[in-house]
């Protein structure tokens, strides 16, 4: 993006502008799975205020959502539901795996829990923690925004 010298015009590639718009309004899907969802809810509250990143609009329909925050352990029975919701989201779409359980099964190393949601949907950012702090989730959204601006994908660990 550059300013044309001596004028009030900006020159930019359409791609860059589109990515800037995408990155500035990443709408998450309203989906809370477990205790991590409590931290996810608190990022919408005034203290952390995810509205600063343009992501305050949690959509209840996957058709309108850009970002899936997998906030908690995924039971084997919930797995197909998550996959279906992901498939229903329109491209382009991003996935944050929030917390130890969503990323690896966490302490639930057993028959009932999916050992990492990346066995079901492609994950863009992993947030460690049990649960991660709201700051951690905000940082993950930041990383998603950076990915969108750059056009890169995949497998980032949100490590401070």
């Amino acid at each position: 993006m550059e300013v044309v010298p001596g004028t009030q015009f900006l020159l930019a590639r359409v791609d860059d502008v589109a990515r800037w718009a995408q990155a500035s309004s990443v709408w998450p899907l309203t989906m809370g799975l477990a205790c991590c969802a409590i931290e996810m809810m608190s990022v919408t509250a005034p203290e952390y205020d995810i509205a600063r990143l343009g992501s305050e609009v949690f959509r209840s329909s996957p058709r309108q959502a850009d970002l899936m925050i997998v906030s908690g352990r995924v039971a084997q029975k919930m797995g197909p539901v998550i996959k279906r919701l992901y498939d229903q989201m329109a491209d382009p779409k991003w996935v944050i795996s929030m917390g130890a359980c969503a990323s690896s099964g966490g302490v639930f190393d057993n028959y009932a829990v999916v050992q990492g949601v990346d066995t079901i949907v492609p994950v863009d950012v992993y947030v460690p923690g049990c649960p991660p702090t709201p700051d951690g989730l905000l940082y993950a959204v930041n990383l998603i925004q950076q990915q969108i601006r750059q056009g890169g994908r995949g497998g980032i660990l949100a490590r401070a």
Partner: protein
Amino acid sequence: MPSPQTPPRGGSAVDPTAVRPDIDDAVIIRVEPAQLRGRLEQLKAEGASMLLDIGGVDYLERTPRFDVVYHLLKLPTRVASVDSVATPMRIRVLCGLDDGQTLPTMSDLWPSADWPEREIYDLFGITFDGHPDLRRIQMPVDWEGYPLRKDYPLRGPALERTPRPDFALKSNLLAGTPASGKTAAALAKQIAKIRGQAE
């Protein structure tokens, strides 16, 4: 290969009801499967109007292997005194049975037996004859095995962690190389470039 998390077969299987002291407000009765229905009908007729819960226990080494426990509550039908209000009577009916044996359903006596019986069927594989809708209730419908049995491997039939898919298989619109690590630096560079040109 057996799961390393399979509980040891030589473990002691003590029936806790044999060593537990009497509880003040609960009567513990053990009945045979053949007598179960008649006994519970009788208890209901005597005023045990609530079936609070049904539990299942797997003692694995014991014969009979399983216990099904019915928790009944008898509330005073008429307030005779303050004492009778304060002491509702609890009745615990234990019924031992082996793998392959079945129990009669109680869902027609107490509707609250419906889901607990499904749960016991789901997790222990104990069948209740005459149940109107004996399907799995917690596990997925196509699940194999009964997870709360003591000889069920903790990690499930697969025994190993599910392998991770390759990140290169991502099928999203903006597929590309992972931006990990380079992201922040590239962003800073981009910002510096824009600012430098604006000045």
